[in-house]
């Protein structure tokens, strides 16, 4: 190892990349599942994720107002029950919203050209961004009193910030990291089992392979599409809570960046492939962390976008996307 790389710094960045990568992977699953079924880049998915984090912040604020949690102790004690509830509630919320979006905006365009659907998805994305802007203007303590709606909001840490490796260790590992693994890994396992072994999961795989054939076999394609949007949305909502808790700030514009990272991850892994999205998410998380450290934070977005462009040009099927790939 060259001596300009400090091993502590490297390990710290790897850990950061791993944690953020797990979150990106969770969002990427939403992109890849929808793309696998109806070949639509669900442009609004990143912004849906943003909406989830705003709901989480609102609920945290409400819990503070009701005296359920003490604002002074945030980051010192851990509120496991609150975190668990938030993951569940925001997941269900985002799943429901995603379902509604599909029903209102995408479903009428199912027979239109792919580009019309993409344009509609961009439109939905902008509408959600605006909703996020207005949401941030609510007169709540956690939103800074609602005075500056567009400003990024601080998200209080719901679990202890203490370094688990001891006070004097340079590498910081907190419960925040552990929580991410404790939520994302079971979710991914559950999703894999669901897609492999349940009847609906089998219907999803069939629809992804060939819509017409699936329909002929008696698969209710509309139900499959709805389930895909709901599950994708749920994962995005769960990711939004983890992201807000880990990075301790939310903003109405963060959906675009997060969405682009996740979409890049989905493409890198091979769009339509579930393990691909997970792998891609981890890799993008790592690339971001390494680029932040060794190239400079102001260049990280350029690095990720260049990576996206290069993959699309040279290997559009991604890492795990083979010809006989198993989509969703």
């Amino acid at each position, binding site marked *: 190892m060259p001596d300009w790389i400090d091993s502590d710094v490297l390990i710290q960045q790897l850990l950061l990349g791993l944690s953020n990568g797990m979150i990106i992977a969770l969002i990427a699953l939403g992109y890849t599942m929808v793309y696998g079924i109806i070949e639509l880049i669900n442009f609004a998915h990143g912004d849906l994720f943003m909406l989830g984090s705003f709901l989480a912040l609102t609920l945290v604020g409400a819990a503070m107002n009701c005296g359920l949690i003490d604002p002074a102790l945030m980051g010192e004690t851990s509120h496991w029950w609150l975190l668990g509830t938030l993951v569940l509630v925001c997941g269900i919320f985002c799943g429901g919203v995603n379902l509604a979006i599909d029903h209102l905006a995408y479903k009428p365009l199912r027979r239109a050209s792919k580009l019309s659907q993409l344009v509609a998805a961009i439109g939905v994305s902008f509408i959600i961004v*605006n909703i996020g802007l207005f949401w941030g203007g609510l007169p709540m303590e956690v939103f800074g009193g609602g005075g500056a709606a567009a400003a990024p909001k601080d998200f209080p840490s719901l679990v202890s910030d203490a370094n688990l490796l001891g006070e004097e260790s340079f590498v910081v590992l907190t419960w925040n990291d552990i929580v991410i693994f404790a939520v994302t890994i079971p979710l991914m396992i559950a999703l894999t089992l669901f897609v492999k072994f349940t009847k609906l999961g089998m219907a999803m795989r069939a629809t992804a392979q060939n819509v017409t054939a699936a329909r002929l076999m008696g698969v209710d394609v509309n139900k499959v599409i709805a389930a895909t949007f709901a599950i994708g949305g749920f994962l995005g909502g769960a990711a939004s809570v983890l992201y807000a808790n880990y990075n301790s700030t939310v903003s109405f514009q963060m959906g675009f960046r997060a969405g*682009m990272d996740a979409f890049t991850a989905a493409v890198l892994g091979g769009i339509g492939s579930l393990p691909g999205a997970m792998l891609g998410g981890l890799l993008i998380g790592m690339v971001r962390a390494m680029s932040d450290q060794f190239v400079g934070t102001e260049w990280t977005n*350029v690095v990720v976008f260049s990576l996206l*462009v290069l993959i*699309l040009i040279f290997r559009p099927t991604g890492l795990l996307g083979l010809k006989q790939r198993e989509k969703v």
Partner: protein
Amino acid sequence: MTTSPVSQTRAAPLLSRGQCILFGCLLALPFFEMLFDLGLSAPTRFVFVFAIVGIGLNVVVGFTGLLHLGIAAFMAIGAYTFGILTCTIYPFQIGFWPGLLAALLFGAAAGAFLGAPTLRLRGDYLAIVTLGFGEIVQDLLKNLEPITKGTQGINPLPTPWFFGAPFVSDTPKSWYFLFLGILLLCTVLVRNLEHSRIGRQWFAVREDELAARCMAIRPDRVKLVALAVGGGLAALGGAMLASLISSTGEPGNYDFQISILALCIVIVGGIGSMTGVIVGAIVMVGMNSILLPLIGLKLQQAGIGTTMSVYLAPDNYKYMLFGLTLVLMMRFRPKGIVAAEAEER
């Protein structure tokens, strides 16, 4: 390959009837305003700039059927080319007209540069690549501070001149006629392209790439020309905008929202229709930079300004406006206000 006899029998007029009416109205507006001061001609200059960008985007999206989500990057390229070549802090200082021309050419080259490796991609992937290009250009301009002055933007920029004589007093009206003239020129030029061999090739590729290939059309080359024309016109618009406000502004001004504004212009007006694009520019930029600020002003005058919250600032509805425009147009009128087929003859 010979052109088909049908198109040879009848040369297209310089402007279609709809375009004549439009340009007539736009030409009359300042004179009308001498009688009743509506304060419209000053903001209409921005309409002209975005109409030119829209015409460029329409070549790519409307004529050739490629979704382009990074047109704002080409505006930025045009603005910065113009800025670097004309601003007094750089050694070039080539003046207004050569600056515009350079922006146009450099934008076209950038369009070709983006297109060359990416044109074989499927439609939605190409859209994402153009989006990525748009973001990369913004970050590059921001980070290459020694060349681009980072977030300060390049200023001041020179005003136009005519044959050695300086611009006829720096009034909104002279800008108005200058920009209207450039828009007219662009309209005629692109209309000629539309009715020429390359125009028919664009349509052929849009309708059916395989069939076009069978007719000995090379889709890659045809698309490349479309991207170059689109990039060049957008860069021209960007350079004009920079000259108008005498600064390139910061790189963040050329963000995704601007690309989507341009896309809204094309889609609202009528995808593939030149008249439609100009109508779309009037509608979208009209709402964006005339109607919304006006409502804001009225609200302030009505005394609500003191308690101005986020919900009462019309500017905060921009995203909603663009988003609803796209969703509703796709749902209920995908062909736009002026449908392309209805436009001709």
